[in-house]
Structures are given as structure tokens and as C-alpha cells.
């Protein structure tokens, strides 16, 4: 008998995380806490040139140092790797070229960290410097020398041109046509835990790597490839991550280096990166220049949109191809855009590689879009909340670029924050210097496609019921602090009617757990949650059959709750959960089940349709209140109201935790965070430290008023959608729009620093446009567009062959 939502005991309540006590008492063992007998310490020698040929490396003096056990250079690890099959462009140690300051060229294993560090000084590398590029514009302007010898054109890694319907004609139908330019500066994840990894090579020829990674499955594949080991002999265990945010989702050079050093020396080898080195791992937000042109009717209806983005990818591919597609994909899932043209380009530059950071490729276009919409509303004389409410994408619909929207709670989100913030009384009515701004967003609950092509499930769960009544859940998912281990326990506990704190959760170990693709793209609750749900329901079915026999009750009348299995009509007639397992085990043998999840097939069939589809989209709306000091330009944010459509919260406390954490991160991006490089000084990272890379402290954190909107999505476990990334997205544009409301200047780029605000105020005072932002978008050799007729033009999701007129 399936229980009604009102009967649920665990789903929706605010339980503590299953590892909470270990975390707060400091007993959780992170990768750097691991120590093994005879362990060696690894240090990496990093490039001191941003772009140079490696002429020679002499490590003999390092090898001669007492305590040094091994030194590796590029030629010891010649096989390239990379997270995406299309960008296998990294080497564990640079082979013949270095591409940014921080690129590793040699690895030392020694008996102490101090010795390993001393050995680095004894390695001499001769470089032949090459011209370096410190911005996407420089890379566009200079196809030579190429940073990589692959890519779509010169120093352009990727060029995308997708057109859904005739966007130019659509735009021309607007009563108002508006064009804007925006820039979003790069920033980094800043997890509290620096990356660390330990490798052990066993005498029987097996490699084990413990690493603070979000994606043990992909690290497993990369290690097997580069080390040329059978995957069956490689075991990757993701240790609890002290924060990831996307910064630990790539296979990393240091992971491969310690593995190889362990194989060579036969001793365990550990590396813990310094904070500076974490800045070099990076894979953070791409600096992105954007241009958008939109046609709008007086009513507020959008008639067409043309969006361009230029991403500064840094030195390697990483997830960059996907990031580039993401800067164009999700514009269509919030406001109805009937015809849409997207052009995206990613450049290689001589800086730390960019990749996925919370929101992956979507905060930048979301910032542009939401500020653009704010300007359009003003131009039309409409309240920006009203304009948005009028143009919402309907639930259960297909967008122009073939994204299937299911549940859609954005309207309710907007209404919540409008009411909560008293928007109608404040917008354009606060005293000079104070203002409010609104912005909305949407995000995927897991990517519809895996990173490498395959048609297997994205997440798998095995469940073991022990005759003692104990239950163990095995899943490849990785807890990076977001609480995914707890979600597995809650879901299984709900279905089997047992205490979640009694459940053993074994995760993120490639020897023990079935594959889950990793903690990225907000996929884990939905995907591993569905897999766990399936496995638990199967176990319940087995137990119910045998319990029913013993209790002489029809199977469908049985209920599982409070550690018992009982007749729903007569709760005294029942048995303990352990007895139910014993009955099943006696009758049918060991009780174990599996569950797995594969996302629904996406509707788009064109090249590039793989990025954007998701089983479900989350929605958020946010109102930010700001105080702007007109003498200094300093912006403070006292309060943020945010509503998030999470479908259904499995645990309300962890959902609100993710919302608040997102706002905190968003404030940093909005106001101060910046991956700054000294272009004129060898392209060094300007400030690779926690002190000088400015991120908010608790004193800068605002008050947050959170509303959860619950409109269960049929594709989510119990209706749940994502919350880990979406609520970050509206923060930056909401702050920008609020600054305009407060002092009437437009800062069309983040971070919104006091320098920029003051400059805009000065310009405004002089009668010029009160704006700071980019002035132009460079000419880019766009390819012939892939033309895809929209669903309402009778399209079937495929591109058409068409000759440009």
C-alpha cells in the first residue's frame, strides 16, 4: 500500500545530516588526514612562464638530494587526458609546452614535504618563451602562436552557432528592440579544503587513490587511461570533500602524479595542494563577454532574441565546450522566446583553466538577461515583476531550442518575493542611495546526457538488507558537503520505514559502489535519489511478499513504518523489520536489490542538443535590497528575499542551507570576487591567496528570507528538483538592478566594485550615460549556423540543411 504524502515520516522534515556530528566534532577524515606507514610526500614544480616551449629539464640535482625517492617529468606520463572526450588536451606534467603560470612540469616524491620542496629548487627548466594572451579578445585578435594545436580556429577553442527559427525576423516584429553588452568577470570556487590525494600501489599490482574529488568515476577512467592499467585494477575513493562547487570535478594532474609516483616507488604518496595551487587548478567561472538583442511587444511579449557570448577559457579545455553551450542554452526556460539565435565562442588564453563553477556557464548569461529585461521593462514603462509574469514559459511545454519544461513554479516564486519584500511599496520609491532589484533564474536538475557517450544509467544503487535488520546503501555518488549521503539514507528509510540513522551508507568507491557520474550539474538528489527509490521499492516488495505470507495479510495492505512491517488495517498485526528480512532470507536467500536511473531522452536532435536538457528545471526569484554610498560607491546588501521552486524538499534544512550558501557565493560574485591577472607582468595571477582574493566574510553576508515553493515534479524522487546551484544565479543581476534603483547607474558587469559605481556616478553627474560596462563585442569568424525549426514551425528537433541566402 503506497503511503499518501501526508503519511510520510522523513521526506520533507528537517533532519540533521547523517554525518553532521562527525563534521562538527572534527572526526571526519578528509584526504589530507590520511597517513600510511612509509608514506612519501609529493610536490609539483610549476611553470614560471605563461606560454613557453620546454627546452630541457634537468632534475639530476633534485634526484641526488637525500630523501628524494623519485622525480617525474612530462615524458614519464605521455598520454593526454581531459574531462571531455573532445578535449583530451592535458598532461599530468607538461610535455613540450607550458601554457600558464602554475602548469606543472615536474613532480617530486620525498620522505618529507620540506625535502620535496627543497628538491624543487634543484630542478632546472630551460624555457623558450612564446607570446602569451591574457584575454579572450587578445586570443581572438591573434590566431598565432596557437596555445593548442587543435580547436575550431586559431586560438578559438570552440565556435557555436545555433538558430531556432528566424530570430532576426522575430526581433524585427518587436515594438521595441533593445541591444546590450555585458561582462561577467571570472571567479573561483574557493572551497575551504584544498585538493589532496593519496595513492597506494599494492604488491599485487593494484592502485588505490583517495582524493578530494567530486567525480571518482571520471578520475577512475583517466587514471586507467594515462597509467595504462586495466580499470579493474584501479580503485578510486572520493574522500569527504570540504567543499567542491565544481572545482574538484576534473581529473587532475596531481592525482595522476601521485599515482605514478606510488607505482614507481612502491610506497604510498600523498599531495596536499597549497592555497595558491588551488588557484592554479581553478576550473572556475569563465570570464564572459556578452551581447544580446531582443525584440519586445508593448505588452512585454518577447518576439525574438539574439545572444552572443565570448568565453575566456584559460589554458585548457576542461568542461569548456559544455560551458560554452550552457551560456546559450537556458535563456529559453524562464521567459517565452519564440525565436532564438545563439552564437558562442570559447578562447584559449594563458591563464589557469576555467571550467564548471556552481551554475556552470549559466550565471553569466543569466546576469545579462535579467539586467537586459530590467532595462526593457523600464523602456516599456512596466514593472519588471509584471513584465516577467506576463512572459513566463508555461509548465509542460517545449521551448524553441527543444528543452522540455515540466513543473514550472517561477510565477509563484515571483509572487512570494514581491509580497515578502513589499516590492510594490519600495521599487523606485526608496530614498536616494537605497534600492531594490528583482531577478529570476532557472537551472537543470542534472544534465540529460553523460560526459562521455554511453547509453547506461547515470546513477546506480545497490541495497543490502541484513538479517539483523540493518540496511546498507551502496552508491557511487559523492558527498561534497551538500548532504547527498543523507539523501540516500532518507529516501531508503522512508520507503522501508526504518530510522535513517540506522542505515549504513557506502558511497564514492569504485570498487564497492555502482557507478554514479558524480556531484556536478545538480544531478545527485534527482538521479541517485531515483535509483535509491527504485532499489528500496524493490526491497520493500521482496520483504512484503514474505512478511505477508507469515502474517497472513494481503501484500498490498502491508505498511512499513517505525521499524515494523504491519497490516495497514490492524497495526498490531505485524513484525519487526528485522523479522521481515529474516522471513525473506529464509524463504528466498540473501536480500539485495539494485536500482538505477537514466534520464528521459531529450527532444532536441541537432548537434549541440546535448547541453540543456534535464529531467526537471528548478526556478528561483530574488529581490535584493542595497545601500549605495554615493561618496564612495560602496554597495552594501542588507537583505535578500529569495523564493526557490525545489519541486519537493527531501530535507527542508539542507535545502535552505543550499539557498543561503548560494546567496553567500552570489554576493561575492556580485560585489568583489575576481580572478585578476597581471597581463603586463608575465600574466601571473594577481592575488592567489585567501587574504587578497576578496570573498565576503560573515560580516558582509546579508539577511536572507527564503521561501520554498513546492510543486512536485513527476521526474524527481518524491517530486524533488535541484537546489544546489539555481539560487545563486539571480543574486548578481538582482544586486545590479537594485544599484540602478538606488542611484540610477547601470553597472553592466560584475563584480560591481565601488570604483565602477563611483565612475558611473561621476559620468552621470557630467550628463553622460551613467553606465560602466563593455563597449564592444569583437568580430568573430562564426560558422554557418545550424538551423533548427522551432516546435511551432513544425520542427522535429532536427537541424535542416540550408544554404545561407
Amino acid at each position, binding site marked *: 500500500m503506497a503511503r499518501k504524502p501526508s503519511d510520510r515520516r522523513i521526506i520533507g522534515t528537517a533532519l540533521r545530516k547523517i554525518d553532521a556530528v562527525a563534521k562538527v566534532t572534527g572526526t571526519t577524515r578528509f584526504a589530507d588526514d590520511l597517513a600510511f606507514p612509509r608514506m612519501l610526500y609529493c610536490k609539483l614544480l610549476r611553470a614560471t612562464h605563461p606560454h613557453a616551449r620546454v627546452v630541457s629539464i634537468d632534475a639530476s640535482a633534485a634526484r641526488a638530494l637525500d630523501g628524494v625517492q623519485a622525480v617525474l617529468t612530462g615524458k614519464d606520463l605521455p598520454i593526454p587526458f581531459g574531462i571531455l572526450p573532445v578535449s583530451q588536451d592535458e598532461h599530468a606534467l607538461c610535455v613540450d609546452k607550458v601554457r600558464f603560470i602554475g602548469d606543472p612540469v615536474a613532480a617530486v616524491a620525498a620522505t618529507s614535504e620540506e625535502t620535496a620542496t627543497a628538491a624543487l629548487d634543484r630542478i632546472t627548466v630551460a624555457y623558450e618563451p612564446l607570446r602569451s594572451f591574457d584575454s579572450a579578445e587578445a586570443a581572438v585578435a591573434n590566431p598565432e602562436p596557437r596555445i593548442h594545436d587543435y580547436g575550431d580556429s586559431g586560438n578559438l577553442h570552440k565556435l557555436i552557432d545555433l538558430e531556432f527559427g528566424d530570430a532576426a525576423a522575430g526581433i524585427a516584429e518587436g515594438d521595441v528592440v533593445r541591444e546590450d553588452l555585458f561582462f561577467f568577470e571570472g571567479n573561483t570556487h574557493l572551497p575551504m579544503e584544498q585538493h589532496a590525494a593519496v595513492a597506494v600501489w599494492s604488491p599485487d599490482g593494484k592502485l588505490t587513490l583517495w582524493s578530494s574529488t567530486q567525480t571518482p568515476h571520471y578520475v577512475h577512467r583517466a587514471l586507467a587511461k594515462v597509467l595504462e592499467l586495466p580499470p579493474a585494477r584501479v580503485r578510486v575513493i572520493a574522500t569527504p570533500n570540504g567543499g567542491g562547487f565544481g572545482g574538484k570535478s576534473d581529473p587532475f594532474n596531481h592525482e595522476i602524479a601521485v599515482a605514478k609516483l606510488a607505482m614507481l616507488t612502491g610506497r604510498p604518496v600523498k599531495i596536499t595542494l597549497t592555497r595558491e595551487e588551488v588557484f592554479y587548478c581553478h576550473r572556475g567561472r569563465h570570464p564572459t563577454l556578452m551581447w544580446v538583442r531582443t525584440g519586445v511587444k508593448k505588452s512585454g511579449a518577447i518576439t525574438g532574441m539574439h545572444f552572443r557570448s565570448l568565453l575566456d577559457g584559460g589554458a585548457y579545455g576542461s568542461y569548456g565546450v559544455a560551458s560554452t553551450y550552457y551560456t546559450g542554452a537556458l535563456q529559453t526556460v524562464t521567459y517565452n522566446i519564440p525565436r532564438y539565435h545563439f552564437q558562442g565562442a570559447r578562447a584559449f588564453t594563458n591563464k589557469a583553466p576555467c571550467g564548471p563553477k556552481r551554475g556552470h556557464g549559466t550565471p553569466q548569461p543569466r546576469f545579462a538577461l535579467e539586467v537586459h529585461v530590467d532595462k526593457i521593462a523600464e523602456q516599456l514603462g512596466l514593472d519588471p515583476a509584471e513584465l516577467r509574469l506576463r512572459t513566463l514559459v508555461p509548465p509542460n511545454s517545449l521551448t524553441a531550442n527543444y528543452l522540455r519544461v515540466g513543473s514550472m513554479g517561477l510565477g509563484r516564486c515571483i509572487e512570494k518575493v514581491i509580497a515578502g519584500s513589499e516590492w510594490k511599496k519600495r521599487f523606485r520609491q526608496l530614498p536616494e542611495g537605497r534600492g531594490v532589484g528583482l531577478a529570476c533564474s532557472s537551472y537543470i536538475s542534472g544534465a540529460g546526457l553523460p560526459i562521455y557517450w554511453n547509453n547506461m544509467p547515470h546513477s546506480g544503487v545497490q541495497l543490502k538488507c541484513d538479517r539483523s535488520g540493518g540496511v546498507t546503501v551502496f552508491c557511487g555518488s559523492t558527498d561534497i558537503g551538500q548532504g547527498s549521503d543523507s539523501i540516500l539514507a532518507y529516501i531508503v528509510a522512508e520507503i522501508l520505514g526504518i530510522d535513517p540513522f540506522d542505515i549504513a551508507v557506502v558511497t564514492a568507491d569504485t570498487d564497492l559502489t555502482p557507478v554514479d557520474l558524480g556531484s556536478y550539474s545538480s544531478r545527485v538528489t534527482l538521479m541517485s535519489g531515483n535509483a535509491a527509490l527504485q532499489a528500496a521499492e524493490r526491497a520493500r516488495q521482496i520483504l512484503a511478499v514474505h512478511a505477508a505470507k507469515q502474517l497472513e495479510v494481503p501484500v498490498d495492505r502491508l505498511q512499513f513504518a517505525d521499524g515494523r512491517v504491519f497490516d495497514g488495517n490492524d497495526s498490531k498485526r505485524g513484525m519487526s523489520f528485522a523479522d521481515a528480512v529474516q522471513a525473506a532470507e529464509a524463504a528466498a536467500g540473501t536480500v539485495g536489490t539494485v536500482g538505477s536511473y537514466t534520464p528521459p531522452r531529450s527532444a532536441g536532435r541537432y548537434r549541440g542538443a546535448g547541453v540543456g536538457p534535464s529531467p526537471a528545471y528548478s526556478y528561483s526569484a530574488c529581490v535584493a535590497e542595497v545601500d549605495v554610498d554615493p561618496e564612495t560607491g560602496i554597495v552594501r546588501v542588507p537583505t535578500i528575499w529569495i523564493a526557490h521552486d525545489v519541486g519537493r524538499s527531501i530535507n527542508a534544512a539542507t535545502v535552505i542551507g543550499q539557498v543561503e550558501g548560494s546567496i553567500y557565493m552570489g554576493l561575492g560574485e556580485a560585489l568583489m570576487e575576481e580572478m585578476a591577472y597581471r597581463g603586463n*607582468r608575465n600574466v601571473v595571477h594577481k592575488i592567489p591567496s585567501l587574504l*587578497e582574493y576578496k570573498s565576503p566574510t560573515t*560580516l558582509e553576508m546579508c539577511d536572507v528570507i527564503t521561501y520554498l515553493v513546492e510543486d512536485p515534479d513527476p521526474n524527481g524522487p518524491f517530486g524533488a528538483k535541484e537546489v544546489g546551484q539555481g539560487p545563486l544565479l539571480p543574486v548578481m543581476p538582482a544586486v545590479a538592478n537594485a544599484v540602478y534603483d538606488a542611484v540610477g547607474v547601470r553597472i553592466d558587469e560584475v563584480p560591481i566594485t565601488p570604483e565602477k559605481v563611483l565612475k558611473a556616478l561621476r559620468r552621470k553627474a557630467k550628463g553622460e550615460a551613467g553606465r560602466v560596462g563593455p563597449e564592444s563585442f569583437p568580430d568573430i569568424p562564426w560558422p554557418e549556423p545550424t538551423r533548427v525549426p522551432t516546435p511551432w514551425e513544425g520542427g522535429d528537433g532536427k537541424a535542416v540543411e540550408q544554404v545561407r541566402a
Partner: protein
Amino acid sequence: MLRLPSFRYLQPASLTEALRMKRDAGPDGMFVAGGTDLYPNMKRRHQEPRTVISLMGISDLRATEGRKDGTTVGSCLTLRDLSVLPAFRPYAAVATAARLVSTPLLRNMGTLGGNLCLDTRCNYYNQSYEWRKSIDFCMKKDGKICWVAPSSPRCWAVSSSDVAPVMVAIGAEYGLIGPHGERVVPAARFYNNDGINYLTKQTDEILVEVRLPASNGWDAVYHKLRRRGSFDFPVLGVAAWINWQSGAGSREPLVNDARIVLGGVASYPQEIAEAAAALRGKPLSDETIAAAAEAAYRPSKPMDNTDFDLSWRKQMTRVYVKRALEELRARHT
């Protein structure tokens, strides 16, 4: 992790012992108090002492003593002590500056003496050895050129102490002891406008105490500009001191004497005499405040080596001097 290199650690119990240890260690020896500046610097190989001599075991250095003409403060009092002890209540500007340093954890460790002797800062210099190697070092350590001003013969690293500008503004004096005996110097003469030789103190001298003047007839405030409300070094500090004219019959009180000292814009706490001149003998009206702020703005010449854009920092001088003087005016009425 970035590791501290190995070194010998000594803990003398008296000043004589400390001086002897320093003599024995020679140029490879350094004094340390709270270590919140020296140890991070050693990790980045800015200072590479083989022997580190801690002053924290010398009880004389932690004493506070009231005198007829003021208060004497031991150099090893922590910044937390300075910000909360009742003895410093008359010295609100000192307590404010101490409270605005960094974070509670660092204030529990960091001392007054360490703060006044703080190494100058520059974001080409406060970087790891490997980072500095990538730009080929600079003249403050291991190199020949100044990356901030490549044609300059000198280093422009920034005096970043919060307490030092206040000490200069209120006219404190520092008591030193060295191999050649004791001496007392006015705070202003303790500092050099040079990023490398930023102190007039010899390396083998110990800063023993700070003599704060008696707290009558004057008032002082300290305003600090930084990115965040905690943790950050000043990119601009304004210490303003006013000696009000006593017994003036007029309704509007007049300024007898003033000192405006800027931190975070030069290699020393920079006293702006022109700003003080704009105030002397006048009331603190909006006009005189604006004139003083303008006078402070002109010579303020921050370089591109801290957080924030330099031209904005320069412009902020005007705003912060104005706000400091407005606070003094408000407190007097």
C-alpha cells in the same frame, strides 16, 4: 601546504638575555612577538632567519603604567588587550585602530610592538617564492627592479599598520633598547618613507614601550578603508588629532592644533602638514573640513600595489579625511 622552514626558536626571560641572544645569532637572528606577520613572511621566504628570538616571555614588555604625563604601554601587549583594557579608554583612537586590525584570532596573538614594526606590504612582494620567481623577483627581496614603478630607484611597499598612524597623530614616543643602551624617539621619526628601510630602528634594537601623552585637551579618531569588515589590511587609514583651543569665549570652538596622518598610501605613516594648516586657528566648519580634506587629497599618492584601484583610493582620501574630521566635530559638541 605552504610550510614554515626549519629554524631555531629561543625564548629569553629578560631584555638583557634577548639582546645577548641576538648578538650571538648575528644577522641570521630576528625578534618575534606574536608572529602573525613574521611567520607568514617566513613561509613566503621574505625573511629567512635561522634563529627566532621570542619576546613574549619577557614580563616587562607586557606592563602598563600610568604616569603624570601620560601612560606607558609595553610593546608585547596584544592588540586585543589594547582594544579592551580600561587603561586605554582615554585613548579611544588607539583602541579603535587595534580593534580594526584583522580578525579576533590575529588580535589575540598580534602585539602592539609587532604592529608598529610591521613589514611594509605590496602585492608583488606578499607572494610565495615561486610566484615571485615568475615575475623575476623585485628589489625588496631577491630582485633588482620595482614592478610597481619600474623606473624607480626605490621600493614603494606600503606601510599597512593600523596603529602606527594613530601613534604619529597623537604624538606618542617609542622607547627602544639596544646593544648601545636605551633611547626614546617620537613615533614620526621611527618611520622612513622607504619600502625596504621602513624603520629607523636598528635590527638589534628592541621596541620596549610606547609612551602615550596625557589625554587632556585633545581628541583623536581613526578611520579605516578596506574591502571587507574584517580581516583586511587598510588600503587607507586616516588618523586625525585635534587640540581644541581652551577657554575661547566664542560659541564655535576653535582648533588650536591638528595632525592628519595617512596610513596605507606610502611606505610610512604620512603626516599631511597642509591639512593641519588648513584647520589651525579655525572652527571645524564644513568649509575648513573641505579645505583640509582637499589638502590631504593632493599629496596622497597610492601606488598600484594593494587591493582596489589606485585612483579610487586617492579619491577616498578626501572622503575619509572629511568623515574623520566630522566625527571629531560631532564628538566635541
